[in-house]
Structures are given as structure tokens and as C-alpha cells.
């Protein structure tokens, strides 16, 4: 059972605590809610029906019973406003049909499961509604136009939004993959290398668990609040895992936001690469915050490499550094010369805030 949208109030009650609960949920004064119900009650008893509906719902989530009562309340209210019975019945069916479509879902696109019950209810509603109003003329033309528009444009809008959602999902997947690559896969590789050393393996596993937890349930990259703090954390982690000292220098600092967090992760990956592959005795990291952009340089004086010699399926540089910076709206430049070391330059434009 899904969580209830509101619960009846035990403390603030006159009858069943419906108004109190609703007021607490909406964050308004309970007296105001009661006043609205009282006014609605005057409209043919709609308020009373609505109260019962919410009572039923708040008493254990009997959604369908509650929905029926709400529909009845709405029908009573519309009659009280002076609409004819046929219009009210038609409107009731239309609303019920829409509700069924929304709740049950379904698709008008090829291959989707048609919400048959919903469509049937909508048609019945339309027959009632139009059958009554056709004589009064002007309803039919705008109605037809709106109907056609909904049929034609609706699926298209649906498709657009679902494609957008798909794109966002793909981006999230790429970020997750980059993250897993940086942390879990690195740790697993280290665990394999140190398989004989039980203590080292245990320490690695503990670390990884802590880190993964922090990422899954915590604040993400680090508790640190600024670029330099987060870089210091990242440097400490890389030092701990790979045993290569990292010298961190900075001119200025910026608060941590999503983009800066990605910058830190890219820098971390660059540090890891330097620690693992360069053979250098020390890694230098320099962060510079100018008014319009932030730059981080990760440099080692080690072996250097040629880009062409790196297997394309190794995701470290393309995905965890370049791809990540691109997604964050920044750039990454890798300059490496055999025998003279490697420098990774990461730049991120400062956001307006």
C-alpha cells in the first residue's frame, strides 16, 4: 500500500479530524479548512460528501470508495451551481474516465496497452455531455477541435517527454558508470593485487564500503564544503590507496556545487592515473579560482604516455575525465610527453550565482 497523502489528525479534531489533518498537510489554519467545508456543505451537501470521502480515505486508504464519494460530491456541487443533470452526469463520466486513464496508465502509441475502461467512460461522458449540449450549438465546434488536438498532439508530447526522460536517464547512467569505475573497480583491482594480504584487503573493502555508502545515501562527493577541501579529501584518499604523496596548492577557493563536485571527481581520477601509471614520486595539484572560471591542474613528472597507446576501452581519461568535464560544461586538456610527465588541466566556467 502506498503512503497516504494525508492522515486524520488525532489532536486537532471536531468530528473525525479530517479538517485538522488536511490543514496540517497543507500548512494552513484548520479554521480556514473548516470554513471551506462548511461553505461546500451549503452547496447541496457537497462538503458533507467530500468530508466523508476524506474520512474514508484517511481511515485506511480505501481509494476507490473515496474517489466515488469525491465524484458524487463534485456532481452535487455542479448541480448546485445550476448545471443540468445530463451535463453533470456527462462531466462525472469524463472525470472518472480521465482518472482511470491516469491511474491505470496505458498508451495511445502503437504497442501500448489501451486503457479500455477509461476510454469507454470518456465516451459515455462525451455522449451525455454533447447529447445534451448539441442543441445549444456553440459547444460542438470547439469541443471537436479540442478533441482532435488532444488526439493528435497528446501522443507527440508524450513521446517528447519520454525521450527527454530517457536522455536524462542515459546521462545519469554514464555518471554512475564513471563513479563505479573510479571507485569500486579500482578497489577490486587493488584487492586482486593484494589478495594475499588479508589486512590490506579488509582495509580496502571497508574504505570502499564507506565511500559507496556516502555516495549512495549521503551528500555525494564529500562532506567538504569547498573546492579546496574536496580536493584535499580526494588527494588524501588517493594517497592512502596508492601511497604516492600529493602536494596541493591553491589560489582562491569556491564553494562546492554540482559542477565543482564533478570537477573534483575528474581531478581525483587524474590523480589516481598519475599515482598508478606515471611512476612519479610526487603529484602536484593546483587549484586556481578566477572570477569567471575555476581551473585545476594535476601534474606528475613521471613516465608520460602517448594517447594512441591507450586502449579505447579504458574509460579513465575519455569517460571519467573528459566526458565528465564535458557533461559539467567544462573542458579537460591532457598534455603528456614521454619521459617528462603528464599534466591534466581541468577548467569549469563559474556559474552566475
Amino acid at each position: 500500500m502506498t503512503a497516504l497523502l494525508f492522515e486524520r489528525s488525532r489532536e486537532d479534531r471536531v468530528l473525525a479530524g479530517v479538517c485538522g489533518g488536511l490543514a496540517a498537510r497543507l500548512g494552513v489554519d484548520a479554521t480556514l479548512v473548516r470554513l471551506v467545508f462548511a461553505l461546500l456543505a451549503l452547496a447541496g451537501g457537497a462538503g458533507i460528501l467530500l468530508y466523508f470521502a476524506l474520512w474514508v480515505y484517511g481511515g485506511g486508504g480505501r481509494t476507490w470508495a473515496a474517489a466515488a464519494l469525491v465524484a458524487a460530491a463534485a456532481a452535487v456541487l455542479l448541480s448546485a451551481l445550476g448545471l443540468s443533470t445530463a451535463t453533470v452526469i456527462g462531466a462525472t463520466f469524463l472525470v472518472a474516465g480521465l482518472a482511470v486513464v491516469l491511474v491505470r496508465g496505458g498508451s495511445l502509441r502503437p504497442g501500448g496497452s489501451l486503457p479500455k475502461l477509461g476510454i469507454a467512460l470518456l465516451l459515455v461522458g462525451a455522449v451525455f455531455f454533447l447529447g445534451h449540449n448539441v442543441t445549444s450549438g456553440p459547444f460542438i465546434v470547439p469541443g471537436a477541435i479540442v478533441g482532435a488536438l488532444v488526439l493528435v498532439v497528446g501522443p507527440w508530447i508524450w513521446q517528447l517527454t519520454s525521450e527527454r526522460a530517457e536522455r536524462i536517464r542515459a546521462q545519469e547512467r554514464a555518471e554512475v558508470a564513471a563513479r563505479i569505475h573510479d571507485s569500486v573497480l579500482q578497489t577490486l583491482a587493488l584487492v586482486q593485487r593484494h589478495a594475499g594480504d588479508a589486512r590490506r584487503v579488509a582495509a580496502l573493502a571497508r574504505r570502499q564500503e564507506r565511500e559507496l555508502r556516502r555516495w549512495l545515501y549521503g551528500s555525494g562527493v564529500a562532506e567538504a564544503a569547498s573546492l579546496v577541501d574536496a580536493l584535499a579529501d580526494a588527494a588524501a584518499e588517493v594517497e592512502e590507496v596508492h601511497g604516492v604523496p600529493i602536494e596541493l596548492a591553491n589560489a582562491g577557493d569556491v564553494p562546492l556545487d554540482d559542477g565543482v563536485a564533478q570537477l573534483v571527481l575528474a581531478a581525483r581520477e587524474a590523480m589516481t592515473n598519475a599515482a598508478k601509471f606515471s611512476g612519479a614520486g610526487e603529484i602536484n595539484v593546483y587549484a586556481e579560482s578566477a572570477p569567471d572560471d575555476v581551473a585545476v591542474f594535476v601534474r606528475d613528472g613521471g613516465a608520460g604516455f602517448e594517447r594512441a597507446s591507450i586502449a579505447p576501452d579504458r574509460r579513465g581519461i575519455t569517460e571519467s575525465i573528459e566526458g565528465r568535464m564535458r557533461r559539467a560544461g567544462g573542458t579537460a586538456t591532457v598534455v603528456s610527453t614521454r619521459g617528462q610527465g603528464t599534466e591534466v588541466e581541468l577548467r569549469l566556467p563559474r556559474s552566475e550565482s
Partner: protein
Amino acid sequence: MKRRVVLVDDHELFRAGVRGELGERIEIVGEAGSVAEAVPLIRELDPEVVLLDVHLPDGGGEGVIAGVAAERPGVKFLALSVSDAAEDVISVIRAGARGYVTKTISSDELEAAVERVAEGDAVFSPRLAGFVLDAFADGERVGDAELDVLTAREREVLQLIARGYRYKEIAARLHLSVKTVEAHVSSVLRKLQLSSRHELTRWAHERRLV
């Protein structure tokens, strides 16, 4: 000939470490763990170089420099610490230290730094270079005081130091001689010590508040 050095640091372990690693290559003539101990010791021993911790139990490293400089102007100071707030480091430099290195520095580099300071040159670690760039950032020229701003070249050199390039590598990259690079660094040090720009004071003050 080995350089005569005094070590001033309140961490006995660190002093032992430096002694162990550099004892063969430099001559450690004395050690002190506080400002009160250090000042008379340095006056008496008159070493070439003092390795000076930025933080001491009874005051900052600048207290040692102030107590010694007038009587022993030939003594060079090299500040050294684990990790410090920028303003503390800048204060020690402004008090007269010829450079600043972090304690994670390798023995070879520390020896080279002692040598360089003894020769009268400046020693900027990457971290100090970053601090100085920050301190001189968006510096407006006060009047025509040339001391208040860094030249484009000086900035370039400092940035490369911050990024971890050695003097030799910087010289190669900028097509300069190592001597010229050293001259730029010394010039920055001079500006740092002599500039009266109130931005520098205000900057340190703001940093302290953050």
C-alpha cells in the same frame, strides 16, 4: 662545505627526522622548540640558515625572525610546516623569511632549498606560490607603486611553480635561463616583503575571518 643550520620546531619527532635524513649533508648546529629558546640560541650560534616552523607554542615564526634580524642580519630563514592558513605563511614571509616549504618535501629538495636560501635566493613551494597569487589577485595599483602588482611574467612563473614545475622546467618552458627565473621569484619575494599595499593586509584579515 656543509651549511650550518639551526632547527626550530616544537615537534621533537620532526627534528629527529630532519637530523636523520639531512644530518650527513648539512651541519645541524642547534635545535630549539620555542621562540624563547630559539632567539638566544640563534644569536649565539649565528648559523647560515634557520629552518623555522610557522607555528611555535609561544608565538609564530615571525617572533623568532623579529628577535634575531637586527643583531644577526646575515641569518637566512626558511619557513616550514605541515599545513597552514595562508595568512600565517604570508606573515612569516613578510617578517623576512626567504621562502616556505611544506614538511612533506623530500630530503633532496629540502637540501636544495637550504642551499638556495643560503645563497640568498628565494624558495617558493607550490603552496606558497598559490598563496602569493591569491594575495596579489585583482590587485589594483595604488598610486604608481610598482611593488603592489606582479608583472605578467612573474604571475606566469608563480603559476608554474604552483603547478609543480621546477625552476629548470619553468626556464625551459618559458625560454628563459634558470637565473632569470630565480630573479623573478626573488622579485616577487621583495614585493611581498616591501609592498605596503593595504590589500595585502586586508587580504590576510579577510582570510582570518573566513
